[in-house]
């Protein structure tokens, strides 16, 4: 009985150059395992995606001028911030309180005057935009001692308002777990430069824990339950 060899007699073994390819594959594999997740993680990070969003508004309104140099209180315009979920974008009438007499012929303010004349509201661009699936209430935060600057940054230095924090869920949760690190007396809510040590003479943690008790801030289990924000 003879042995016939089927098809190609050459069995496939790895060619010699595979020996050089192998370390390369290992390096690329190990490097890729670090590089790709890092890149994706960085690119999709809410800080990368959201922070610094500063759209051009119909009127170049400067918070640096109004809230900074002129020292206007935030609540002069954002009137409902202490009593409602939404912090009220002011109606044109609020602008005209002053601008009917001050800079009342300035070219850049023409859209405001038009709006006032026609009754058609200004179309401001929304910057801090949470997902519709999350419930947020300004008044709850303001009344429990969370200052404007904590979430919005130093608006009093911004000519064009930009998003200062990433507004990610972890950002919310971290404060909901440990609110004492961010609480301040209610009368300092709109103060952009307030500091526990400097202005209250107490470490933030000590003061925060006191205020937490005083303002009736709930415990972490309550504050981090799903339905606190996803209602």
């Amino acid at each position, binding site marked *: *009985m003879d*042995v*016939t*060899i*089927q*098809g*190609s*007699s050459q*069995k*496939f*073994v*790895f060619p010699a150059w595979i020996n050089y390819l192998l370390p390369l594959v290992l390096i690329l594999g190990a490097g890729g395992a670090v590089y790709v997740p890092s890149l994706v*993680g960085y690119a*999709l*990070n*809410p800080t990368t995606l959201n922070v610094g969003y500063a759209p051009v508004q119909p009127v170049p309104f400067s918070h640096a001028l109004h809230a900074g140099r002129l020292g206007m209180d935030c609540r002069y315009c954002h009137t409902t911030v202490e009593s409602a979920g939404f912090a009220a974008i002011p109606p044109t009438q609020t602008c005209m309180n002053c601008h009917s007499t001050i800079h009342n012929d300035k070219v850049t303010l023409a859209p405001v005057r038009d709006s006032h004349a026609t009754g058609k509201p200004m179309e401001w661009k929304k910057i801090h935009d949470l997902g519709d699936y999350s419930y947020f209430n300004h008044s709850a935060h303001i009344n429990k001692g969370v200052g404007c600057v904590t979430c919005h940054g130093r608006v009093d230095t911004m000519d064009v308002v930009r998003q200062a924090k*990433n507004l*990610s*869920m*972890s950002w919310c*949760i*971290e404060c909901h777990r440990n609110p004492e690190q961010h609480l301040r007396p209610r009368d300092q809510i709109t103060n952009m430069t307030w500091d526990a040590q400097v202005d209250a003479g107490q470490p933030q943690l000590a003061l925060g824990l006191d205020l937490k008790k005083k303002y009736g801030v709930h415990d972490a289990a309550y504050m981090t339950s799903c339905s606190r924000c996803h209602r």
Partner: protein
Amino acid sequence: MTTMTRESSFPELPDPDAVRNSMGGIDSPEIDNTSDDPRQRAPLVTGDNDFASVTEKVTQLALFPIKKTPKAWWVAFAAALFLLALLKFTIVYLLVTGTGIWGNNTPVSWGFPIVNFVFWVGIGHAGTLISAILFLFRQNWRTSINRFAEAMTIFAVMCAGLFPALHVGRAWFAYWLFPIPNQMAMWPQMRSPLLWDVFAVSTYATVSILFWYVGMIPDLATLRDRATSKTSQVLYGIFSLGWNGSSRHWVRFERAYLLLAAIATPLVLSVHSVVSFDFAVAQLPGWHTTIFPPYFVAGAVFGGFAMVITLAVPARQFFGLKEIITMRHLENMAKVMLATGLIVSYAYATEFFVAWYSGHHYEQFVFMNRPMGSLKWAFWTMFLCNVCGPQFMWFKALRNNLWVLMFSAMCVNVGMWFERFVITVTSLHRDFLPSSWATFVPTKIDYLMLLGSFGLFFTMFLLFLRFLPAVAMAEVKSVLPQAHPHHHGDDHSSSHGDGHDGGTKDGEAH
């Protein structure tokens, strides 16, 4: 003796003709290998087979040119593909529409998806038991069936994994099951058995795939060496990782295989124990019992062996493997199925006894509700299939009748699905408060999805049969009489089939 075409890659081998002629001729008598004669070890491969013919038989299906694929395979594959298409359709429909297309709704939030998940995960256990535990216990009969039982495990776990991923509702968020750092500062609930399940099943899938693949490397090299087309040579070549059959390779291979078997062994017990925790940790009458882990594991092995039999009988019949997967193998599996079936029956009885003995009002109600409530048809189907179905296996004549064997196995396949249905649905639909009772009515999509999952399973299995070595050739050769020449007192310089090239290195027996 038939003329065999084979490749000789080891020129130093002895003359194959001489070797083959010395290994029992064509007229060696047919042996009934199901008997247990203490004077003679029953052969595990019947017929006139030697190292070369085992290779021939196993590789032929994988190496057939496409046109020569057996008709039976095409018919089965077409049917499986149809069911797979059905599964795809139902999944797309589900993703587009939402989970409302299923029948599960409060209070029966775990309807078919979880029933199917537990069913499929259970199936896999026979594969791991055969490949790991029987290996460690030196049960040589496992060699003929371990490869495809392992394949069955992997495909069953694939089917199983599908259902919880879909059952989470928004399947595109299924990755939330894993503890991946994320912008939400959210982590899976480590105290939940559902999360333990994620780890148990993913570990199980990983180890099973590794075990299966590592064990296959020498056989893939055989396919590589015998493949005729360039593509298959290169593909088998890549996946056989440069195997050349040297002693060094064999030593390392066997060590790795032993270690993997040791790693896989606890999984046989752990995976379904953890699956049972999904139920047992919940404080629901009918679920909250300590018997669940062993009861689930026995049930899983029971159902798994039924599925191995279901697959083995037609596979050996249609693809020329009758002499390798012999009646003895089927007989042994039937015995395991009977034994585990008795454990399961005992567990059923214990559940009822404990419900009565506990004096627990709700527990007693649930167990009266099962055989007598609105879902009694499901309970009695389960009882008939799982308790009565395997009883035929007590009798050798019935065990050795393939029709009866298949009937029993099919009974168990059906019964084990109903067992999970009974456990899941009866406890949920009648819980503590009568005001929250409801009736569970599965929808058409529920049934189609269950059917479709068989499509996925069989498609994968048929592809496996067609393109991979369905039997662990190298291992089967090691249980051939030719591999143990010292048994006959002959003089030999080496032993053990080298396996990877259909070689006839050292056989000289009979």
